[in-house]
């Protein structure tokens, strides 16, 4: 227990401290403080000029169409292209669609194992490229939203913002991280697999490749798609406790810094502190629950000659320490990262519920940029509910929140449970889902529920026993990822556009302050009621049912 607490203080507490200066830097970056770099970026792409919410959104969509189209072509033709030392063959078109959608939307749901599916060119030139630019897209969207509701005249320029995020933020940090984990043992080579002869005379073929570069940005940009099938449980993606600590820090660093960046751009750091506090409180609750539940031993060994004093080791790596499984599970789903440090399918039933809850809420820091955007929707809802309760016109930062804005907020918030519960219901009732399960009963239901939660939340982790490389899964989750990505980005920009068009009123003594603990508590309750309660019946059918029937 002491080791767990020390580990959590080291990686979560340490990262929270680091996020403060980084958020300050990001706010300066997106406020044009680096004019020389900005001039260079503007010259590189053209298309300069200030954008409103419509033109910013159109530019975002245009670039994301290019992202999807290019990677779709690259993946579909990888067998004809160079940098393919292990001779990877043709992938099915539905898998290509799913993978291109998955990495374009910053989800990184993987219905394949990298080492046996994609060439090095497909991994680096297609997937790793998307890991940079999809993360940059999310951060750019947050900068635009913050400018809009912070009272600036324009939302900025999308093409400039993406380059700021990619070149001035993601690239330098990823470079440092890649070099550090390469020293720890993550391979970085263009050579194909290594063939060895074991001491007993058998032959073993060991996949390797340019993994260090890939793993760094997958952790940093809340991407989460691994170079190898089992992600960061693979010793080549995560060779030591210290590479593990760095990779965990990278999961939450930028999502945390995004809150401070938002607060600085809107000029309300105290408001950001309240938001950060609410997110941190949710995180601590989830961490405590997951670490506690996972300390229960493997139920399947209960009546055997196996000591039951070391927690559940199924699906876990010894070198990463006992805390890594639950800690990583919580952080990777609090943010929309989706990389794993232990196999989620083999977590104890109630531990497995915690990452699902993380994806249902999807704003405990959340994805880079988009986590704070999701939180903005809950803030608008909390302000509205509070306003109704005391009978005053709801106002947020001097903006009146009215019917039009609330309709948009509800549209964006309701899409999330609709995608998850609708998809789960469909696949739990048909062979599309039932024929692909690796576990029976309630745990099988959890596999379907997890997959749709992961797709809609743009998370990308999975209960990986699910045989999900089928046309039905590839198409359904591909669509869920696309809707789950662009709706919650475009709608908030539209809300900000609507607010910008109205005259701001001065805040008075009667206005609900968004900088105090009252607002924090209100926000926390709204998140729990609207975010978590929606999913309670589904949770009862899956992990909770499994726990009460099978755990002793």
């Amino acid at each position: 227990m002491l080791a767990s607490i020390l580990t959590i203080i080291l990686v979560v507490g340490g990262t929270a401290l680091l996020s403060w200066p980084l958020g300050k830097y990001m706010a300066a970056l997106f406020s044009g403080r680096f004019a020389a770099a900005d001039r260079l970026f503007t010259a590189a792409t053209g298309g300069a000029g200030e954008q409103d919410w419509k033109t910013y959104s159109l530019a975002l969509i245009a670039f994301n169409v290019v992202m999807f189209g290019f990677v779709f072509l690259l993946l579909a033709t990888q067998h004809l292209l160079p940098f393919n030392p292990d001779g990877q063959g043709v992938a099915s078109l539905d898998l290509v669609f799913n993978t291109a959608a998955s990495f374009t939307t910053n989800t990184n749901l993987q219905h394949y194992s990298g080492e046996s599916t994609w060439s090095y060119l497909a991994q680096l030139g297609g997937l790793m490229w998307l890991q940079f630019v999809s993360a940059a897209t999310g951060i750019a969207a947050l900068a635009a939203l913050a400018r809009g509701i912070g009272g600036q005249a324009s939302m900025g320029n999308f093409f400039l913002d993406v380059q700021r995020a990619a070149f001035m933020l993601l690239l330098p940090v990823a470079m440092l991280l890649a070099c550090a984990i390469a020293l720890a043992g993550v391979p970085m080579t263009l050579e194909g697999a290594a063939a060895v002869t074991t001491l007993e005379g058998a032959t073993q073929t060991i996949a390797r490749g340019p993994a260090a570069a890939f793993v760094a940005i997958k952790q940093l940009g809340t991407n989460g798609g691994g170079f190898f099938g089992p992600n960061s449980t693979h010793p080549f993606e995560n060779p030591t406790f210290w590479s593990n600590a760095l990779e965990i820090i990278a999961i939450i660093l930028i999502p945390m810094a995004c809150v401070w960046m938002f607060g600085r751009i809107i000029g309300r750091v105290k408001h950001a502190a309240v938001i950060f506090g609410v997110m941190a409180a949710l995180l601590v609750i989830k961490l405590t629950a997951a670490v506690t539940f996972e300390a229960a031993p493997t139920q399947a060994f209960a009546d055997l000659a196996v000591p039951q004093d070391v927690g559940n080791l199924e699906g876990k790596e010894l070198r990463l320490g006992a805390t890594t499984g639950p800690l990583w599970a919580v952080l990777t789903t609090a943010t929309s990262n989706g990389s794993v440090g232990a196999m989620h399918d083999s977590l104890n039933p109630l531990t497995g519920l915690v990452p699902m809850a993380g994806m249902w809420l999807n704003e405990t820091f959340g994805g880079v940029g988009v986590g704070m955007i999701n939180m903005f929707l809950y803030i608008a809802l909390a302000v509205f509910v509070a306003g109704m309760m005391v009978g005053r016109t709801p106002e947020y930062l001097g903006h009146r929140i009215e019917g039009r804005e609330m309709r948009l907020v509800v549209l964006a918030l309701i899409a999330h449970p609709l995608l998850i519960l609708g998809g789960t219901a469909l696949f739990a009732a048909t062979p599309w889902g039932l024929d692909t399960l690796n576990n029976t009963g309630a745990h099988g239901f959890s596999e379907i529920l997890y997959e749709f939660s992961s797709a809609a939340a743009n998370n990308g982790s999975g209960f990986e026993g699910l045989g999900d490389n089928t046309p039905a899964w590839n198409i359904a989750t591909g669509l869920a990822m696309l809707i789950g990505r662009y709706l919650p980005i475009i709608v908030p920009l539209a809300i900000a556009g609507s607010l910008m068009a109205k005259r701001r009123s001065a805040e008075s003594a009667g206005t609900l302050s968004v900088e105090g603990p009252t607002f924090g508590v209100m926000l926390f309750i709204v998140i729990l009621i609207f975010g978590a309660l929606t999913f309670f019946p589904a949770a009862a059918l899956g992990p909770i049912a499994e726990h009460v029937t099978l755990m002793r």
Partner: protein
Amino acid sequence: MQYLLPSLRLWLVTFAICVVGYTALVLAFAQSVAPFQANGSIIEADGPAVGSKLIAQDFSSPRYFWPRPSAVDYDGMGAGGSNTSPTSPDLTDRAKELIARYGATADKPIPADLVAASGGGLDPHISLEGALYQADRVAAARGLPPAEVKRLIEAQAVSAAGPFAPERIVNVLELNLALDRQAQ
């Protein structure tokens, strides 16, 4: 159209810098500063490669220490876990086979890591308890005094990260290499 051309130019610059430039720099750094790790930590014991320090391989002879079970049979080209619920009877059945193989009894229970498969199926380590548990078998098969085998294990056991992960673990391939060196 007004957005397509800037998007294509953005594709070009980000691809050139974030894929080509970034990969080249990381590759140059790793290959020059840490070539052993960069190429997969492949161990070449006096000649041909015998394995990777980081990747578990199958050992079934009683003369060697055995690794944790692997859901993918130690396939270096297709890693993965069992992805089975900890409440599943499949895990009970797998554990029973291993208990029979190790000859574990209620008086001599088997450490849990030796019956639980790892996440990637390639975990190169076993717990210190898991290594000591096998010491008598290895010593008997090699005709060595058990105390000497235990001394070797103790010399190889390390804690993963001091106070953050105090449990001591042993790298199976390195331990088996040390055993073979002992015999020479």
